[in-house]
Protein backbone atom coordinates (compact mmCIF):
# COMPACT_ATOMS: atom_id res chain seq x y z
CA UNK A 1 0.00 0.00 0.00
CA UNK A 2 1.28 3.43 -0.87
CA UNK A 3 1.88 5.88 2.01
CA UNK A 4 -0.44 8.47 0.52
CA UNK A 5 -3.20 5.86 0.12
CA UNK A 6 -2.64 4.76 3.71
CA UNK A 7 -3.04 8.35 4.88
CA UNK A 8 -6.10 8.81 2.72
CA UNK A 9 -7.60 5.63 4.14
CA UNK A 10 -6.81 6.80 7.67
CA UNK A 11 -8.49 10.13 6.95
CA UNK A 12 -11.69 8.44 5.81
CA UNK A 13 -11.80 6.18 8.86
CA UNK A 14 -11.11 9.13 11.18
CA UNK A 15 -13.81 11.09 9.38
CA UNK A 16 -16.14 8.16 9.96
CA UNK A 17 -16.39 9.04 13.63
CA UNK A 18 -16.07 12.80 13.99
CA UNK A 19 -16.82 13.14 17.70
CA UNK A 20 -14.26 10.55 18.64
CA UNK A 21 -11.68 12.07 16.35
CA UNK A 22 -12.29 15.56 17.69
CA UNK A 23 -11.97 14.36 21.28
CA UNK A 24 -8.63 12.75 20.56
CA UNK A 25 -7.40 15.81 18.71
CA UNK A 26 -8.44 17.94 21.67
CA UNK A 27 -6.59 15.75 24.15
CA UNK A 28 -3.43 15.81 22.06
CA UNK A 29 -3.70 19.52 21.42
CA UNK A 30 -4.11 20.35 25.10
CA UNK A 31 -1.15 18.18 26.01
CA UNK A 32 1.13 19.76 23.46
CA UNK A 33 -0.12 23.26 24.22
CA UNK A 34 0.55 22.70 27.93
CA UNK A 35 4.11 21.61 27.28
CA UNK A 36 4.80 24.50 24.96
CA UNK A 37 3.19 27.10 27.19
CA UNK A 38 4.71 25.91 30.46
CA UNK A 39 8.21 25.58 29.07
CA UNK A 40 7.78 29.01 27.54
CA UNK A 41 6.82 30.51 30.88
CA UNK A 42 9.56 28.60 32.71
CA UNK A 43 12.11 29.69 30.21
CA UNK A 44 10.85 33.26 30.34
CA UNK A 45 11.21 33.26 34.11
CA UNK A 46 14.72 31.88 33.81
CA UNK A 47 15.73 34.55 31.33
CA UNK A 48 14.19 37.23 33.53
CA UNK A 49 16.00 36.15 36.68
CA UNK A 50 19.30 35.59 34.96
CA UNK A 51 18.93 38.97 33.33
CA UNK A 52 18.26 40.63 36.68
CA UNK A 53 21.30 38.95 38.06
CA UNK A 54 23.43 39.97 35.15
CA UNK A 55 22.40 43.59 35.59
CA UNK A 56 24.47 43.60 38.75
CA UNK A 57 27.44 43.33 36.48
CA UNK A 58 29.08 40.08 35.60
CA UNK A 59 32.55 41.41 36.19
CA UNK A 60 31.84 41.75 39.87
CA UNK A 61 34.09 39.69 42.13
CA UNK A 62 33.21 39.16 45.78
CA UNK A 63 35.87 38.38 48.34
CA UNK A 64 34.64 36.68 51.50
CA UNK A 65 36.84 36.02 54.52
CA UNK A 66 37.49 32.34 55.20
CA UNK A 67 38.32 29.51 52.90
CA UNK A 68 35.44 27.18 52.18
CA UNK A 69 36.33 23.51 51.88
CA UNK A 70 34.04 22.98 48.95
CA UNK A 71 35.91 25.34 46.71
CA UNK A 72 35.10 25.95 43.07
CA UNK A 73 33.20 29.16 43.49
CA UNK A 74 29.77 27.70 43.94
CA UNK A 75 27.29 29.42 46.22
CA UNK A 76 27.99 26.64 48.72
CA UNK A 77 31.13 28.60 49.55
CA UNK A 78 28.93 31.31 50.98
CA UNK A 79 28.88 29.39 54.25
CA UNK A 80 32.56 29.28 54.96
CA UNK A 81 34.25 29.63 58.33
CA UNK A 82 36.05 32.81 59.30
CA UNK A 83 39.54 32.05 60.53
CA UNK A 84 41.04 35.47 59.87
CA UNK A 85 39.30 38.76 59.29
CA UNK A 86 39.55 40.80 56.16
CA UNK A 87 40.48 44.32 57.13
CA UNK A 88 40.40 47.76 55.60
CA UNK A 89 44.16 47.42 55.07
CA UNK A 90 43.50 44.26 53.05
CA UNK A 91 40.97 46.17 50.98
CA UNK A 92 43.40 48.97 50.35
CA UNK A 93 46.09 46.49 49.30
CA UNK A 94 43.68 44.69 46.98
CA UNK A 95 42.78 47.98 45.30
CA UNK A 96 46.36 48.39 44.10
CA UNK A 97 46.11 46.62 40.75
CA UNK A 98 45.34 47.70 37.22
CA UNK A 99 42.85 44.81 37.00
CA UNK A 100 40.62 46.59 39.51
CA UNK A 101 38.29 49.25 38.25
CA UNK A 102 36.41 49.86 41.48
CA UNK A 103 36.57 48.35 44.93
CA UNK A 104 34.48 48.80 47.99
CA UNK A 105 34.61 47.13 51.41
CA UNK A 106 31.32 46.13 52.97
CA UNK A 107 30.18 45.76 56.53
CA UNK A 108 26.67 44.72 57.49
CA UNK A 109 24.87 44.74 60.79
CA UNK A 110 21.56 45.37 62.53
CA UNK A 111 21.14 48.81 64.04
CA UNK A 112 18.42 51.12 65.35
CA UNK A 113 17.90 54.45 63.71
CA UNK A 114 15.97 57.16 65.59
CA UNK A 115 14.77 60.69 64.86
CA UNK A 116 12.61 62.80 67.19
CA UNK A 117 11.32 59.85 69.14
CA UNK A 118 10.58 57.65 66.12
CA UNK A 119 12.85 54.68 65.70
CA UNK A 120 13.18 51.48 63.72
CA UNK A 121 15.46 48.53 63.13
CA UNK A 122 17.45 48.68 59.92
CA UNK A 123 20.20 46.75 58.18
CA UNK A 124 23.28 48.96 58.37
CA UNK A 125 25.74 48.93 55.50
CA UNK A 126 29.24 50.30 55.91
CA UNK A 127 30.88 51.06 52.58
CA UNK A 128 32.46 53.73 50.40
CA UNK A 129 31.49 56.02 47.54
CA UNK A 130 32.14 53.24 45.01
CA UNK A 131 29.19 51.19 46.25
CA UNK A 132 26.84 53.49 44.35
CA UNK A 133 28.24 52.37 40.99
CA UNK A 134 29.15 48.81 41.89
CA UNK A 135 25.64 48.02 43.09
CA UNK A 136 23.86 50.25 40.58
CA UNK A 137 22.10 52.20 43.32
CA UNK A 138 20.10 55.27 42.44
CA UNK A 139 20.16 58.37 44.55
CA UNK A 140 16.87 60.25 44.90
CA UNK A 141 18.07 63.34 46.74
CA UNK A 142 21.26 64.73 48.29
CA UNK A 143 24.69 63.17 47.88
CA UNK A 144 26.15 59.71 48.37
CA UNK A 145 29.08 58.91 50.69
CA UNK A 146 32.00 61.30 50.09
CA UNK A 147 35.02 60.24 48.05
CA UNK A 148 37.63 60.10 50.77
CA UNK A 149 39.93 57.72 52.57
CA UNK A 150 38.07 54.67 53.85
CA UNK A 151 39.66 55.06 57.30
CA UNK A 152 37.74 58.26 57.96
CA UNK A 153 34.73 57.52 60.18
CA UNK A 154 32.68 60.50 59.12
CA UNK A 155 29.28 60.38 60.85
CA UNK A 156 27.05 60.73 57.79
CA UNK A 157 24.45 58.39 56.32
CA UNK A 158 22.42 57.71 53.20
CA UNK A 159 18.98 56.27 53.94
CA UNK A 160 16.59 54.10 51.96
CA UNK A 161 13.30 55.45 50.68
CA UNK A 162 11.20 53.50 53.16
CA UNK A 163 13.38 54.51 56.11
CA UNK A 164 12.92 58.12 55.00
CA UNK A 165 9.14 57.81 54.75
CA UNK A 166 8.77 56.15 58.09
CA UNK A 167 11.02 58.49 60.04
CA UNK A 168 10.40 61.79 58.30
CA UNK A 169 7.09 61.41 56.49
CA UNK A 170 7.01 64.37 54.05
CA UNK A 171 9.48 66.44 56.03
CA UNK A 172 12.97 67.40 54.93
CA UNK A 173 15.62 64.91 56.02
CA UNK A 174 18.75 66.22 54.35
CA UNK A 175 21.08 67.75 56.94
CA UNK A 176 19.03 66.37 59.84
CA UNK A 177 20.78 64.54 62.65
CA UNK A 178 19.60 61.01 63.40
CA UNK A 179 20.72 58.62 66.13
CA UNK A 180 22.42 55.45 64.93
CA UNK A 181 23.11 53.17 67.89
CA UNK A 182 24.78 55.49 70.34
CA UNK A 183 26.06 57.98 67.78
CA UNK A 184 24.67 61.05 66.10
CA UNK A 185 24.89 61.09 62.36
CA UNK A 186 23.89 63.50 59.61
CA UNK A 187 21.61 62.42 56.74
CA UNK A 188 23.24 63.41 53.43
CA UNK A 189 21.26 61.47 50.88
CA UNK A 190 18.11 59.45 50.19
CA UNK A 191 18.10 56.42 47.88
CA UNK A 192 15.61 56.02 45.06
CA UNK A 193 12.74 53.67 45.74
CA UNK A 194 12.94 51.36 42.74
CA UNK A 195 16.48 50.06 43.10
CA UNK A 196 15.89 46.63 44.49
CA UNK A 197 18.96 44.76 43.39
CA UNK A 198 19.24 41.09 44.19
CA UNK A 199 19.97 40.35 47.82
CA UNK A 200 19.69 43.95 48.94
CA UNK A 201 16.50 45.72 49.80
CA UNK A 202 17.59 49.25 49.06
CA UNK A 203 14.35 50.67 50.45
CA UNK A 204 15.15 49.61 53.95
CA UNK A 205 18.90 50.09 54.22
CA UNK A 206 21.06 52.76 55.74
CA UNK A 207 24.55 53.28 54.34
CA UNK A 208 27.40 54.87 56.30
CA UNK A 209 31.17 55.16 55.70
CA UNK A 210 32.80 51.82 56.40
CA UNK A 211 35.04 53.08 59.23
CA UNK A 212 32.00 54.59 60.95
CA UNK A 213 30.14 51.28 60.57
CA UNK A 214 33.05 49.41 62.15
CA UNK A 215 32.84 51.81 65.06
CA UNK A 216 29.07 51.35 65.37
CA UNK A 217 29.24 47.58 65.06
CA UNK A 218 32.42 47.41 67.08
CA UNK A 219 34.33 45.25 64.65
CA UNK A 220 37.63 45.28 62.76
CA UNK A 221 36.70 42.68 60.21
CA UNK A 222 34.86 43.24 56.95
CA UNK A 223 31.79 41.30 55.84
CA UNK A 224 33.17 41.16 52.30
CA UNK A 225 34.95 43.16 49.66
CA UNK A 226 33.28 43.89 46.35
CA UNK A 227 35.61 44.37 43.42
CA UNK A 228 34.66 45.30 39.90
CA UNK A 229 37.16 43.98 37.38
CA UNK A 230 38.29 46.18 34.53
CA UNK A 231 36.47 43.79 32.17
CA UNK A 232 35.42 40.17 31.93
CA UNK A 233 38.74 39.11 30.43
CA UNK A 234 40.75 40.33 33.42
CA UNK A 235 38.72 38.36 35.99
CA UNK A 236 41.18 35.47 36.05
CA UNK A 237 44.15 37.81 36.55
CA UNK A 238 42.19 39.65 39.21
CA UNK A 239 41.55 36.41 41.08
CA UNK A 240 45.24 35.58 40.97
CA UNK A 241 46.02 39.08 42.26
CA UNK A 242 43.55 38.64 45.12
CA UNK A 243 44.97 35.28 46.14
CA UNK A 244 48.55 36.54 45.96
CA UNK A 245 47.81 39.69 47.92
CA UNK A 246 45.86 37.86 50.62
CA UNK A 247 48.56 35.19 50.91
CA UNK A 248 51.22 37.86 51.33
CA UNK A 249 49.26 39.65 54.02
CA UNK A 250 47.93 36.58 55.82
CA UNK A 251 51.23 34.81 56.35
CA UNK A 252 51.03 32.62 53.29
CA UNK A 253 47.42 31.54 53.63
CA UNK A 254 44.92 32.18 50.89
CA UNK A 255 42.12 32.20 53.45
CA UNK A 256 39.47 33.94 51.41
CA UNK A 257 36.75 32.72 49.13
CA UNK A 258 36.29 34.42 45.80
CA UNK A 259 32.90 34.42 44.19
CA UNK A 260 32.46 35.61 40.67
CA UNK A 261 29.09 36.64 39.40
CA UNK A 262 29.28 34.45 36.36
CA UNK A 263 29.62 31.30 38.43
CA UNK A 264 26.63 32.31 40.55
CA UNK A 265 24.84 33.16 37.36
CA UNK A 266 25.70 29.80 35.83
CA UNK A 267 24.40 27.99 38.89
CA UNK A 268 21.17 29.94 38.88
CA UNK A 269 20.84 29.32 35.20
CA UNK A 270 21.30 25.60 35.73
CA UNK A 271 18.77 25.43 38.57
CA UNK A 272 16.17 27.32 36.60
CA UNK A 273 16.80 25.19 33.56
CA UNK A 274 16.11 22.07 35.58
CA UNK A 275 12.96 23.71 36.92
CA UNK A 276 11.80 24.46 33.40
CA UNK A 277 12.46 20.87 32.40
CA UNK A 278 10.52 19.63 35.41
CA UNK A 279 7.55 21.78 34.53
CA UNK A 280 7.77 20.53 30.96
CA UNK A 281 7.86 16.94 32.15
CA UNK A 282 4.79 17.50 34.30
CA UNK A 283 3.03 18.91 31.27
CA UNK A 284 4.32 15.90 29.35
CA UNK A 285 2.22 13.70 31.61
CA UNK A 286 -0.85 15.19 30.00
CA UNK A 287 0.54 13.96 26.70
CA UNK A 288 0.76 10.47 28.09
CA UNK A 289 -2.84 10.80 29.24
CA UNK A 290 -3.69 11.80 25.70
CA UNK A 291 -1.82 8.74 24.52
CA UNK A 292 -3.84 6.48 26.78
CA UNK A 293 -7.00 8.09 25.47
CA UNK A 294 -5.83 7.39 21.94
CA UNK A 295 -5.20 3.78 22.89
CA UNK A 296 -8.67 3.43 24.34
CA UNK A 297 -10.32 4.97 21.37
CA UNK A 298 -8.26 2.90 18.96
CA UNK A 299 -9.23 -0.25 20.82
CA UNK A 300 -12.85 0.78 20.43
CA UNK A 301 -12.25 1.50 16.77
CA UNK A 302 -10.75 -1.95 16.28
CA UNK A 303 -13.76 -3.55 17.95
CA UNK A 304 -16.13 -1.51 15.80
CA UNK A 305 -14.30 -2.18 12.57
CA UNK A 306 -13.73 -5.89 13.08
CA UNK A 307 -15.50 -6.79 9.85
CA UNK A 308 -13.56 -4.19 7.89
CA UNK A 309 -10.24 -5.45 9.21
CA UNK A 310 -11.22 -9.04 8.43
CA UNK A 311 -12.22 -7.93 4.96
CA UNK A 312 -8.87 -6.26 4.32
CA UNK A 313 -7.19 -9.48 5.35
CA UNK A 314 -9.37 -11.51 3.02
CA UNK A 315 -8.52 -9.05 0.24
CA UNK A 316 -4.82 -9.67 0.71
CA UNK A 317 -3.59 -7.45 3.55
CA UNK A 318 -1.01 -9.08 5.82
CA UNK A 319 -0.65 -8.51 9.55
CA UNK A 320 2.01 -5.85 9.13
CA UNK A 321 -0.15 -3.96 6.69
CA UNK A 322 -3.12 -3.99 9.06
CA UNK A 323 -0.87 -2.71 11.85
CA UNK A 324 0.54 -0.04 9.58
CA UNK A 325 -2.99 1.14 8.74
CA UNK A 326 -3.95 1.61 12.38
CA UNK A 327 -0.63 3.14 13.40
CA UNK A 328 -0.96 5.58 10.50
CA UNK A 329 -4.32 6.60 11.88
CA UNK A 330 -2.87 7.26 15.34
CA UNK A 331 0.13 9.11 13.96
CA UNK A 332 -2.14 11.26 11.83
CA UNK A 333 -4.20 12.12 14.90
CA UNK A 334 -1.10 12.94 16.94
CA UNK A 335 0.41 15.03 14.20
CA UNK A 336 -2.71 17.09 13.60
CA UNK A 337 -3.43 17.35 17.34
CA UNK A 338 0.19 18.30 17.90
CA UNK A 339 0.05 21.05 15.30
CA UNK A 340 -3.14 22.44 16.82
CA UNK A 341 -1.45 22.25 20.21
CA UNK A 342 1.62 24.11 18.97
CA UNK A 343 -0.63 26.81 17.55
CA UNK A 344 -2.53 27.07 20.83
CA UNK A 345 0.70 27.09 22.83
CA UNK A 346 2.18 29.86 20.72
CA UNK A 347 -1.02 31.85 20.87
CA UNK A 348 -0.98 31.46 24.66
CA UNK A 349 2.61 32.55 25.05
CA UNK A 350 1.98 35.46 22.70
CA UNK A 351 -0.94 36.51 24.91
CA UNK A 352 1.24 36.15 27.99
CA UNK A 353 3.80 38.49 26.45
CA UNK A 354 1.03 41.03 25.80
CA UNK A 355 0.07 40.99 29.48
CA UNK A 356 3.54 40.66 31.01
CA UNK A 357 5.98 42.22 28.56
CA UNK A 358 8.87 41.76 31.00
CA UNK A 359 8.49 37.99 30.74
CA UNK A 360 9.70 36.68 27.40
CA UNK A 361 7.61 33.51 27.26
CA UNK A 362 8.54 32.49 23.72
CA UNK A 363 8.96 28.71 24.03
CA UNK A 364 12.47 27.47 23.23
CA UNK A 365 12.80 25.46 20.03
CA UNK A 366 13.83 22.32 21.89
CA UNK A 367 10.51 22.44 23.74
CA UNK A 368 8.60 22.68 20.48
CA UNK A 369 10.48 19.72 19.05
CA UNK A 370 10.11 17.76 22.28
CA UNK A 371 6.38 18.41 22.57
CA UNK A 372 5.71 17.46 18.98
CA UNK A 373 8.02 14.48 19.20
CA UNK A 374 6.37 13.26 22.39
CA UNK A 375 2.95 13.64 20.78
CA UNK A 376 4.00 11.49 17.83
CA UNK A 377 5.79 9.08 20.14
CA UNK A 378 2.83 8.52 22.44
CA UNK A 379 0.53 8.24 19.44
CA UNK A 380 2.78 5.58 17.99
CA UNK A 381 3.38 3.70 21.23
CA UNK A 382 -0.20 3.62 22.37
CA UNK A 383 -1.50 2.56 18.98
CA UNK A 384 0.74 -0.50 18.89
CA UNK A 385 -1.43 -2.55 21.22
CA UNK A 386 -4.72 -1.89 19.37
CA UNK A 387 -2.93 -2.37 16.06
CA UNK A 388 -1.55 -5.71 17.18
CA UNK A 389 -4.96 -6.78 18.33
CA UNK A 390 -6.37 -5.85 14.93
CA UNK A 391 -3.60 -7.68 13.09
CA UNK A 392 -4.33 -10.84 15.04
CA UNK A 393 -8.04 -10.86 14.29
CA UNK A 394 -9.19 -14.07 12.69
CA UNK A 395 -10.66 -12.93 9.35
CA UNK A 396 -13.25 -15.71 9.34
CA UNK A 397 -14.68 -14.74 12.70
CA UNK A 398 -14.38 -11.07 11.85
CA UNK A 399 -16.38 -11.60 8.68
CA UNK A 400 -18.89 -13.95 10.27
CA UNK A 401 -20.40 -11.03 12.13
CA UNK A 402 -22.70 -8.74 10.26
Amino acid at each position, binding site marked *: MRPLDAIGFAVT*SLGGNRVRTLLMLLAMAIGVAAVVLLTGIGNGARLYIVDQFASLGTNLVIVIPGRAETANNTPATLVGETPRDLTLDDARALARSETVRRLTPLNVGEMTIAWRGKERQIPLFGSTASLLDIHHLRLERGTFLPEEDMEIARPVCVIGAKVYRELFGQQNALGELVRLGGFRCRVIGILGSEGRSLGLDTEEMVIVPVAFAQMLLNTEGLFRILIEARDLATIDRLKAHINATVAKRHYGEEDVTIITQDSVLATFDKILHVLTLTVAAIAGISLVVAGILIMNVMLMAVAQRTAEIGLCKALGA*GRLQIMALLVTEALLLSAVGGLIGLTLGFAGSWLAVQFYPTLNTTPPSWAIAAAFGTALGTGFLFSLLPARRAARLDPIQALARR
Partner: protein
Amino acid sequence: MIELREVSRLFTVGGQEVRAMDRVSLDIASGEYLSIMGPSGSGKSTLLNILGLLDTPDSGTYLLQKWDVTHLNDRQLAATRSRTIGFIFQFFHLIPRLTAQQNIELPLMLAGVSQRERRERSRPLIEAFGLAERCHHRPDELSGGQRQRVAIARAVINRPAILLADEPTGNLDRHAGGEIIDLLEGLHRDGLTLVVVTHDPEIGERAARRIRVVDGRIASDSKGP
Protein backbone atom coordinates in the same frame (compact mmCIF):
# COMPACT_ATOMS: atom_id res chain seq x y z
CA MET B 1 -5.59 -26.16 -10.04
CA ILE B 2 -6.76 -27.17 -6.56
CA GLU B 3 -5.85 -30.45 -4.87
CA LEU B 4 -6.96 -31.22 -1.33
CA ARG B 5 -5.48 -34.40 0.14
CA GLU B 6 -7.08 -35.85 3.28
CA VAL B 7 -7.66 -32.39 4.71
CA SER B 8 -9.19 -32.18 8.20
CA ARG B 9 -10.19 -29.23 10.27
CA LEU B 10 -11.10 -29.62 13.93
CA PHE B 11 -12.76 -27.20 16.28
CA THR B 12 -13.16 -27.68 19.98
CA VAL B 13 -16.37 -26.22 21.26
CA GLY B 14 -17.03 -26.50 24.99
CA GLY B 15 -14.50 -29.30 25.40
CA GLN B 16 -16.06 -31.26 22.54
CA GLU B 17 -14.30 -31.87 19.26
CA VAL B 18 -16.15 -30.93 16.09
CA ARG B 19 -14.77 -32.25 12.82
CA ALA B 20 -15.81 -29.44 10.46
CA MET B 21 -13.79 -31.18 7.74
CA ASP B 22 -13.07 -34.86 7.97
CA ARG B 23 -10.29 -36.13 5.67
CA VAL B 24 -11.63 -34.35 2.62
CA SER B 25 -9.92 -34.97 -0.72
CA LEU B 26 -11.01 -32.84 -3.62
CA ASP B 27 -9.61 -31.85 -7.01
CA ILE B 28 -10.86 -28.81 -8.84
CA ALA B 29 -9.66 -28.18 -12.37
CA SER B 30 -8.99 -24.76 -13.80
CA GLY B 31 -12.14 -23.21 -15.25
CA GLU B 32 -14.56 -25.46 -13.37
CA TYR B 33 -17.94 -24.32 -12.05
CA LEU B 34 -18.71 -26.01 -8.77
CA SER B 35 -21.52 -25.70 -6.27
CA ILE B 36 -21.33 -26.86 -2.67
CA MET B 37 -24.53 -27.72 -0.84
CA GLY B 38 -25.40 -29.45 2.37
CA PRO B 39 -27.18 -29.00 5.68
CA SER B 40 -26.37 -26.17 8.02
CA GLY B 41 -23.23 -26.86 10.07
CA SER B 42 -22.00 -29.53 7.68
CA GLY B 43 -18.74 -27.70 6.97
CA LYS B 44 -19.36 -25.86 3.69
CA SER B 45 -18.00 -22.55 4.85
CA THR B 46 -15.04 -24.24 6.49
CA LEU B 47 -14.18 -25.92 3.20
CA LEU B 48 -14.46 -22.64 1.34
CA ASN B 49 -12.28 -20.83 3.91
CA ILE B 50 -9.60 -23.49 3.58
CA LEU B 51 -9.75 -23.21 -0.20
CA GLY B 52 -9.48 -19.43 0.10
CA LEU B 53 -6.50 -19.59 2.48
CA LEU B 54 -8.42 -17.76 5.18
CA ASP B 55 -8.02 -20.88 7.30
CA THR B 56 -5.40 -23.60 7.37
CA PRO B 57 -5.93 -27.36 7.71
CA ASP B 58 -5.08 -29.22 10.89
CA SER B 59 -3.91 -32.15 8.80
CA GLY B 60 -3.66 -33.09 5.16
CA THR B 61 -2.16 -31.23 2.22
CA TYR B 62 -3.40 -28.42 0.05
CA LEU B 63 -1.81 -27.85 -3.34
CA LEU B 64 -2.83 -24.63 -5.09
CA GLN B 65 -1.64 -24.40 -8.69
CA LYS B 66 0.73 -27.28 -7.94
CA TRP B 67 2.22 -25.37 -5.03
CA ASP B 68 1.97 -26.65 -1.45
CA VAL B 69 0.23 -23.88 0.48
CA THR B 70 -0.45 -25.90 3.63
CA HIS B 71 2.24 -24.24 5.71
CA LEU B 72 2.66 -20.72 4.38
CA ASN B 73 3.31 -17.85 6.79
CA ASP B 74 0.98 -14.90 7.22
CA ARG B 75 2.72 -12.77 4.65
CA GLN B 76 2.75 -15.47 1.98
CA LEU B 77 -0.89 -16.32 2.66
CA ALA B 78 -1.89 -12.68 2.28
CA ALA B 79 0.07 -12.33 -0.95
CA THR B 80 -1.43 -15.50 -2.40
CA ARG B 81 -4.95 -14.41 -1.45
CA SER B 82 -4.33 -11.06 -3.06
CA ARG B 83 -3.09 -12.58 -6.33
CA THR B 84 -5.15 -15.73 -6.86
CA ILE B 85 -8.37 -15.62 -4.88
CA GLY B 86 -11.50 -13.52 -5.02
CA PHE B 87 -14.07 -13.68 -2.22
CA ILE B 88 -17.78 -12.94 -2.25
CA PHE B 89 -19.72 -12.96 1.00
CA GLN B 90 -23.35 -13.26 1.97
CA PHE B 91 -23.28 -9.90 3.74
CA PHE B 92 -21.33 -8.08 0.98
CA HIS B 93 -18.86 -6.57 3.48
CA LEU B 94 -18.44 -3.26 1.77
CA ILE B 95 -16.77 -0.45 3.70
CA PRO B 96 -19.62 1.99 4.38
CA ARG B 97 -17.60 5.21 4.26
CA LEU B 98 -16.05 4.45 0.86
CA THR B 99 -17.83 4.96 -2.45
CA ALA B 100 -18.71 2.01 -4.66
CA GLN B 101 -15.72 2.73 -6.84
CA GLN B 102 -13.35 3.01 -3.86
CA ASN B 103 -14.69 -0.27 -2.52
CA ILE B 104 -14.06 -1.93 -5.86
CA GLU B 105 -10.50 -0.59 -5.96
CA LEU B 106 -9.68 -1.55 -2.37
CA PRO B 107 -7.72 -4.76 -3.20
CA LEU B 108 -5.59 -2.80 -5.67
CA MET B 109 -4.99 -0.07 -3.09
CA LEU B 110 -3.90 -2.64 -0.53
CA ALA B 111 -1.59 -4.12 -3.15
CA GLY B 112 0.03 -0.73 -3.75
CA VAL B 113 -1.28 -0.07 -7.25
CA SER B 114 -1.22 3.57 -8.32
CA GLN B 115 -4.41 5.58 -8.38
CA ARG B 116 -4.24 6.00 -12.15
CA GLU B 117 -3.93 2.29 -12.78
CA ARG B 118 -6.71 1.58 -10.28
CA ARG B 119 -9.03 3.90 -12.24
CA GLU B 120 -8.05 2.25 -15.51
CA ARG B 121 -8.85 -1.19 -14.17
CA SER B 122 -12.06 -0.38 -12.29
CA ARG B 123 -13.64 1.60 -15.13
CA PRO B 124 -14.42 -1.36 -17.47
CA LEU B 125 -15.74 -3.44 -14.55
CA ILE B 126 -18.02 -0.64 -13.42
CA GLU B 127 -19.39 -0.36 -16.94
CA ALA B 128 -19.78 -4.09 -17.41
CA PHE B 129 -21.58 -4.54 -14.07
CA GLY B 130 -24.01 -1.71 -14.76
CA LEU B 131 -22.72 0.42 -11.90
CA ALA B 132 -21.67 3.48 -13.89
CA GLU B 133 -24.35 5.73 -12.41
CA ARG B 134 -23.85 4.52 -8.87
CA CYS B 135 -20.09 4.37 -8.68
CA HIS B 136 -19.76 7.53 -6.54
CA HIS B 137 -22.47 6.46 -4.13
CA ARG B 138 -21.83 4.89 -0.78
CA PRO B 139 -23.05 1.35 -0.02
CA ASP B 140 -26.04 2.49 2.06
CA GLU B 141 -27.37 4.28 -1.02
CA LEU B 142 -27.29 1.07 -3.11
CA SER B 143 -29.75 -1.78 -3.37
CA GLY B 144 -28.76 -5.25 -2.18
CA GLY B 145 -28.17 -6.44 -5.73
CA GLN B 146 -26.03 -3.43 -6.51
CA ARG B 147 -24.02 -3.96 -3.34
CA GLN B 148 -23.31 -7.54 -4.29
CA ARG B 149 -22.29 -6.42 -7.77
CA VAL B 150 -19.84 -3.99 -6.20
CA ALA B 151 -18.53 -6.85 -4.06
CA ILE B 152 -18.11 -9.07 -7.13
CA ALA B 153 -16.29 -6.33 -9.01
CA ARG B 154 -14.01 -5.98 -5.97
CA ALA B 155 -13.42 -9.74 -5.96
CA VAL B 156 -12.32 -9.87 -9.58
CA ILE B 157 -10.46 -6.58 -9.99
CA ASN B 158 -7.12 -8.15 -9.14
CA ARG B 159 -7.75 -10.84 -11.82
CA PRO B 160 -7.85 -13.85 -9.53
CA ALA B 161 -7.81 -17.41 -10.82
CA ILE B 162 -10.55 -18.60 -8.45
CA LEU B 163 -13.75 -16.98 -7.30
CA LEU B 164 -15.15 -18.25 -3.99
CA ALA B 165 -18.70 -17.24 -3.10
CA ASP B 166 -20.27 -18.15 0.25
CA GLU B 167 -24.05 -17.90 -0.15
CA PRO B 168 -23.83 -14.89 -2.46
CA THR B 169 -27.62 -14.79 -2.84
CA GLY B 170 -28.44 -15.55 0.79
CA ASN B 171 -29.26 -11.96 1.51
CA LEU B 172 -31.06 -11.12 -1.73
CA ASP B 173 -34.54 -11.64 -3.12
CA ARG B 174 -35.10 -14.15 -5.94
CA HIS B 175 -34.80 -11.64 -8.74
CA ALA B 176 -31.62 -9.97 -7.52
CA GLY B 177 -30.17 -13.35 -6.59
CA GLY B 178 -30.78 -14.61 -10.12
CA GLU B 179 -29.01 -11.58 -11.56
CA ILE B 180 -26.01 -12.17 -9.32
CA ILE B 181 -25.76 -15.81 -10.37
CA ASP B 182 -26.01 -14.74 -14.03
CA LEU B 183 -23.16 -12.34 -13.45
CA LEU B 184 -21.01 -14.98 -11.76
CA GLU B 185 -21.70 -17.47 -14.53
CA GLY B 186 -20.67 -14.83 -17.05
CA LEU B 187 -17.34 -14.48 -15.25
CA HIS B 188 -16.99 -18.24 -15.27
CA ARG B 189 -17.57 -18.34 -19.01
CA ASP B 190 -14.75 -15.80 -19.36
CA GLY B 191 -12.40 -18.31 -17.75
CA LEU B 192 -12.66 -17.97 -13.98
CA THR B 193 -12.84 -21.01 -11.73
CA LEU B 194 -16.05 -20.57 -9.74
CA VAL B 195 -17.03 -22.16 -6.44
CA VAL B 196 -20.44 -21.28 -4.99
CA VAL B 197 -21.74 -22.39 -1.58
CA THR B 198 -25.52 -22.23 -1.49
CA HIS B 199 -28.61 -23.42 0.31
CA ASP B 200 -30.77 -22.88 -2.73
CA PRO B 201 -31.10 -26.13 -4.75
CA GLU B 202 -32.20 -24.21 -7.82
CA ILE B 203 -28.95 -22.30 -7.84
CA GLY B 204 -26.91 -25.32 -6.86
CA GLU B 205 -28.30 -27.35 -9.77
CA ARG B 206 -27.09 -24.77 -12.27
CA ALA B 207 -23.46 -25.69 -11.66
CA ALA B 208 -21.74 -28.19 -13.92
CA ARG B 209 -20.35 -30.00 -10.90
CA ARG B 210 -22.25 -30.35 -7.64
CA ILE B 211 -20.83 -31.39 -4.32
CA ARG B 212 -22.85 -32.36 -1.28
CA VAL B 213 -21.21 -32.04 2.10
CA VAL B 214 -22.56 -33.86 5.15
CA ASP B 215 -20.83 -33.90 8.54
CA GLY B 216 -17.55 -32.64 7.21
CA ARG B 217 -17.32 -35.24 4.42
CA ILE B 218 -18.11 -35.14 0.73
CA ALA B 219 -21.24 -37.24 0.46
CA SER B 220 -21.69 -36.91 -3.28
CA ASP B 221 -19.87 -35.35 -6.19
CA SER B 222 -21.81 -35.30 -9.45
CA LYS B 223 -21.04 -33.88 -12.86
CA GLY B 224 -23.25 -33.28 -15.87
CA PRO B 225 -26.96 -32.46 -15.93
